[in-house]
């Protein structure tokens, strides 16, 4: 795994180094938008859907994605895309339930939700599990990229990993969530562009689409893998582990993704963002990351690559073969972009849990916000360091793909079960949640040592691989059974308004602090002026404009720069305090400064609730 064989030219190294510096400076620039912990963790809750959608894709695509999906694409063909094209299954649960629940309940972290929905013990357990999940992901991502870059830079694994971690740690330290969102936007663009560039060059190298498709067998052309074989890439295995367990974990349990959606200006923007991700961006990302493997398979069939080409190296091999000097460096920079955009999200999430669920709960709970912001910034640095230290441990696994699969299969089902039942079943009790996390995890652990217990759930998959992928179904069923049985013998928790799907309406009222105004209205444009009222967070609006917006005093209002491409970076949100006879929106100085808005310029005004 660590054999050093230098690829690329000097120009490629220059491109990669330039990319490192550019992304660090670009990310650090957004430090100026981070003055509170709300900014650091949630970007001030002001962004537009398209910005979050693009940055989400960069988070989904880790550096391991290029390697993992290219390897799968080489071995199994176009069906390697299945992991990116099955998120639709859990979409209704996210859009109708989880997103409004976490947004309106103003939950800062998933463990915090667990305390409010269940109790402190469940929160503690969730904190431990989620931290393991996140820190493990950081280690895996750093290792994968380190292995890939070692091949081209000719440097040992650890220095490569340390450089990447330092760069991500620096811009995250200064910029928090806003830096994560904007660097991820840029990196999403880079990795998709590089992926399609590779695809185009590969097709050209092959001599056209006919040679490409002609080089793929029937099995390699299918959209879905074969039903239950081979055991390491069967349809049912991927369905339960990837489409159900991992996708649910990504959207429901990944603190980083949750924080991304909480940085949006409204729940409706979140619904648009996730739908756009699932329908448009995931297929695009899938082609970008997996085509290296498809090209490799066609190249073997056309005699361009030898039949014994290593599947694990196929992405780098194809990129080096088809890309000209400079372009190869750009493609490697995309691999780095994929890593950084995933790792920065994870580190920001670790920081949020570190502050919200450990520091505030067990160390100091009455400090000013500035103090917590400093703590968050330092936890980001410490998390980067821990990720680096984990790399040698993960490196001891033979296959990154298997290591990743085992890790997620072991810890996600109990958490996913508790989150889903907690959000969608009012009767689900705190004791049952604790039992599911504890007993459910024991069942999963037992199945790791005694895989034959999974046989009834195997769908005919060979036990040869220890049912690694079928474990997800077994785990979800056993955790679900523990949860349901324990619920019927224990006492449900009262006072959980806004924390389950049954009471989202009440959650909206709690979020707003009064009755919600759901009258439909469209955003309007008007001039921004400075309010003469000497109050903080003061917003006034002309009566005629208020009528158009169907907004009343006390309703939540959002004001942004008229240029849509800022994505809400220049914006402010608050409650409408007064009406007047002007044709303008008037804000107090603190809001204008916070939103970086310009007086006397046109702005877009929108009713939120």
């Amino acid at each position, binding site marked *: 795994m660590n054999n050093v064989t230098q690829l690329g030219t000097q120009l490629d190294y220059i491109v990669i180094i330039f990319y490192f510096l550019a992304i660090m400076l670009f990310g650090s620039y957004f430090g100026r938008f981070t003055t509170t912990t709300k900014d650091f963790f949630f970007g001030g809750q002001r962004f537009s859907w398209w910005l979050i959608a693009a940055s989400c894709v960069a988070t989904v695509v880790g550096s391991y994605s290029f390697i993992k999906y290219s390897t799968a694409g080489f071995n199994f063909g*176009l069906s390697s895309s299945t992991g990116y*094209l*099955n*998120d*639709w*299954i*859990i*979409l*209704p*649960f996210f*859009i*109708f*339930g989880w997103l409004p629940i976490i947004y309106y309940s103003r939950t800062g972290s998933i463990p915090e939700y667990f305390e409010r929905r269940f109790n402190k013990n469940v929160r503690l357990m969730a904190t431990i599990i989620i931290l393991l999940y996140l820190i493990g992901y950081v280690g895996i991502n750093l290792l994968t990229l380190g292995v890939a870059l070692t091949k081209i830079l000719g440097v040992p694994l650890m220095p490569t990993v340390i450089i990447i971690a330092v760069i991500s740690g620096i811009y995250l330290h200064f910029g928090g969530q806003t830096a994560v969102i904007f660097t991820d936007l840029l990196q999403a663009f880079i990795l998709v562009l590089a992926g399609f560039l590779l695809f185009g060059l590969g097709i050209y190298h092959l001599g056209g689409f006919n040679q490409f498709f002609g080089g793929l067998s*029937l099995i390699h*052309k*299918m*959209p*879905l*893998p*074969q*039903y239950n074989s081979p055991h390491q890439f069967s*349809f*049912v295995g991927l*369905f339960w582990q990837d*489409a*159900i367990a991992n996708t649910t974990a990504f959207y429901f349990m990944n603190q980083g993704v949750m924080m991304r959606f909480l940085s949006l200006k409204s729940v*409706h923007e979140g*619904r*648009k963002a996730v*739908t756009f991700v*699932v*329908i448009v961006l995931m*297929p695009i990302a899938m082609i970008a990351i997996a085509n290296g493997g498809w090209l490799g398979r066609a190249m073997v069939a056309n005699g361009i690559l030898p039949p014994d080409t290593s599947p694990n190296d196929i992405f780098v091999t194809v990129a080096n073969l088809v890309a000209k000097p400079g372009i190869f460096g750009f493609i490697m920079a995309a691999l780095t972009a994929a890593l950084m955009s995933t790792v920065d999200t994870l580190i920001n999430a670790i920081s949020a849990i570190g502050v919200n669920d450990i520091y505030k709960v067990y160390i100091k709970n009455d400090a000013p916000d500035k103090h917590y912001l400093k703590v968050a910034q330092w936890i980001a640095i410490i998390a980067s360091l821990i990720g680096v230290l984990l790399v040698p441990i993960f490196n001891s696994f033979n296959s990154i793909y298997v290591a990743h699969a085992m890790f997620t299969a072991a810890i996600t089902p109990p958490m996913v079960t508790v989150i889903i039942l907690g959000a*969608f079943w009012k009767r689900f009790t705190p004791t049952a949640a604790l039992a599911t996390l504890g007993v459910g995890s024991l069942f999963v652990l037992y199945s790791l040592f005694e895989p034959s217990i999974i046989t009834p759930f195997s769908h005919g998959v060979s036990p040869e691989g220890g049912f690694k992928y079928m474990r997800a179904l077994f785990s979800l069923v056993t955790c679900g059974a523990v949860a349901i049985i324990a619920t019927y013998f224990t006492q449900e928790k009262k006072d959980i308004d806004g924390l389950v*799907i*049954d*009471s*989202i*309406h009440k959650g*909206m009222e709690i979020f707003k602090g009064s009755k919600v105004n*759901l009258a*439909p209205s469209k955003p309007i444009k008007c001039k921004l002026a400075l309010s003469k009222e000497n109050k903080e967070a003061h917003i006034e609006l002309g009566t005629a404009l208020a009528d158009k917006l169907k907004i009343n005093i006390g309703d939540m209002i959002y004001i942004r720069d008229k240029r849509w491409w800022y994505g809400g970076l220049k914006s402010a949100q608050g409650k409408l305090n007064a009406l007047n006879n002007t044709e303008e929106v008037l804000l107090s100085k603190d809001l204008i400064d916070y939103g970086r808005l310009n007086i006397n310029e046109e702005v877009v005004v929108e009713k939120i609730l």
Partner: protein
Amino acid sequence: MWKPFLYQHIVGGIIFIIGYLLYFSKTDKTLIRAQGRSIVFYPLVAFVFYFLINLFWMLWATGE
């Protein structure tokens, strides 16, 4: 050949529909009405999109 396709859309479809049923049976009716039809259609568009993509992809790959 078609078994994964059927499994994906039948078993996946059942899980998908449960998400809808929970929304319509548990969410406050006034909220459902106020939020309008658009959010109801978002996941449905995704389902139809992927069903058709997979269907035509299967037909192309198998040459049927």
